[in-house]
């Protein structure tokens, strides 16, 4: 009995010693292995490419001065992975906000407002419980000028003994007054690796 307990204990110690320690990764200095699935570096690359191209093209320069108001429309995930497309759109929104050229509305969305509090706060009108001087007045919400939409596509190929996974991140910025796409971009992300790797 004692020998068995000792053997189990030794095994556990050996296994614990072999396991890779958990560590923090600094995104500013990450040369780590590449996954076949989409990781944060891919979203960062796509967002950087998109924002730099939007700024360089002048598409987000409001000729009347001031900032454009953008709404995030549908970003379709046509990949085999479960992707939260906010990983992409949030980076774009933050960068455009920092550029001083575009501000995003959270009061409108395809599936209802992103922040329902904008509407909820207006339900306080005519409530005797609230000081009405602080309640939002009618006609103060800003309608969007631009809409950001897009699609993430995945294609898998077998190349000799390897697997090639292609991702295409396609984005369009539509001017809502005319319905015209005033900016469009596509970032291809191509990965080649072991055929045993799983990309879903």
């Amino acid at each position, binding site marked *: 009995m004692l020998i068995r307990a000792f053997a189990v204990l030794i095994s556990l110690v050996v296994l614990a010693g072999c396991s890779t320690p958990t560590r923090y990764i600094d995104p500013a200095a990450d040369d780590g292995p590449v996954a076949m699935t989409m990781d944060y570096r891919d979203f960062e690359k796509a967002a950087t490419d998109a924002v730099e191209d939007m700024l360089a093209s002048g598409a987000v320069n409001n000729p009347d001065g001031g900032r454009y108001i953008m709404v995030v429309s549908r970003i379709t995930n046509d990949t085999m992975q479960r992707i939260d497309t906010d990983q992409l759109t949030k980076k774009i929104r933050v*960068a455009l906000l920092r550029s001083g050229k575009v501000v995003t509305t959270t009061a409108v969305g395809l599936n209802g407002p992103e922040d329902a509090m904008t509407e909820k706060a207006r339900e306080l009108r005519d409530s005797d419980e609230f000081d009405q001087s602080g309640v939002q007045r009618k006609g103060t919400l800003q309608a969007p000028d631009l809409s950001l939409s897009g699609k993430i596509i995945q294609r898998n190929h077998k190349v000799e003994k390897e697997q090639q996974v292609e991702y295409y991140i396609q984005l369009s910025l539509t001017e809502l007054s005319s319905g015209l796409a005033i900016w469009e971009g596509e970032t291809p992300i191509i990965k080649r690796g072991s055929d045993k790797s799983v990309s879903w």
Partner: protein
Amino acid sequence: MKMFILVSMLILGLTGCASQPETSSSLIDREELKVDPEVIYTMDVKELFEKRLEQPGGERLLQVQFAVEARSDTELAWKVTWFDESGMVVRGVGEGYKKATLLTGQTRYFSSTAPNARVTSYQLHLREPK
């Protein structure tokens, strides 16, 4: 009279206290182009241009472009860090390095646009990815 001098000195003293702290520093001369030694063995930086894109409000957006020519098949990682007039970093989308592959004899052109019109200077860092 004594009172007048006392009040004047007090005002001068307070003005001295209210002066802005020194924000500029000239401790380090920041290089616009920083190339790691490992990169120099495999490629040459042939060009480095900067351009200012006119903005509607009269502001100008900084854009840089550089070209590298590879002497052998190699990989490159690069990043541009942006600074405002005070020398403070202006953040862009991400902080990571962009990676590129170059074939022998190939010249590739890369460009980057500043995240904000406040940007007045930059530092381009070229390194070899691990």
